[in-house]
């Protein structure tokens, strides 16, 4: 009997903690809600080795989520919000690197490499 009570208590504690941690973001417009959740899954948590702010509950991620929420409600575009965050927390914060400058290497690098390999492959076959 005691064990059962204890187990119930432990389960209660284990299952109830996430409820305290989760901040609730309310939206009247479902489109804004969709944009908010897609944005926070594309912004990297600056304190984590790898993870989005959506998956993180460290204070700075919470601050960024609150700011993104505020900006979405204010009517900022996705691009404006990402620029706002990356201006403060660096390009590192964006999980989808912008299509510009030194990032071209990141986007095209694998294809260039593949093309080179194919060229070599075909030259070799001809020889």
């Amino acid at each position, binding site marked *: 009997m005691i064990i059962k009570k204890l187990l119930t208590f432990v389960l209660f504690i284990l299952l109830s903690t996430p409820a305290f941690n989760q901040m609730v973001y309310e939206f009247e417009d479902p489109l804004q809600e969709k944009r908010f959740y897609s944005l926070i899954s594309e912004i990297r948590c600056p304190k984590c080795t790898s993870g989005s702010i959506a998956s993180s509950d460290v204070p700075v991620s919470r601050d960024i989520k609150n700011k993104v929420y505020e900006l979405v409600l204010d009517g900022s575009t996705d691009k404006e919000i990402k620029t706002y965050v990356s201006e403060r927390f660096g390009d590192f914060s964006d999980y989808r690197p912008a299509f510009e400058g030194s990032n071209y290497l990141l986007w095209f690098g694998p294809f260039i490499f593949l093309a*080179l390999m194919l060229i070599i492959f075909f*030259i070799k076959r001809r*020889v």
Partner: protein
Amino acid sequence: MSHLLRFLIVLLPIVVLIFFAKILLIDEEIQLSNYDLKNFPEFQLNDLNGNPVQSDSLKGIKVLNVWASWCITCLVEHPFLTKLSEQNIQIIGLNYKDSDLKANAWLKKHGNPYLFSIYDPRGDLAFELGVTGAPESYLIVNNQVLGHIQGEMDQRKWDTIFLPLIQKAKQGS
């Protein structure tokens, strides 16, 4: 043709290897600290004594150190900051998500290496600066952020990150 091919087969992996080695061997601390030149954000906050902070207080060469009384690592780097302040390095504190009572008590207990500390209980200015937690330090020259160190400040980081930037700034002026 086969010469070219043999040459490529040897050369390509070497190029790729050097390329990735270079990326992997970059010291992350130093990479993070290389801020693009950017202006210090506008702010209206008081110091820990309740006096408004003047914007011209960030002129000249200043180190801005983000700290809080709840931050354990801040206590670890505190002796080093005290040493810097004794060498006439001007350090300004940014008291982050703290209460002024606790912060002032902390300074009284452990000593105060700061010219003054900006009181930022909600972390507004810290957010604008891209602070991810305490402690962090910024090198500010004439209202512009030139360097950024995340985590504990020590002699090695000071010598390799901030000191060269200070010397460069002094040469430039």
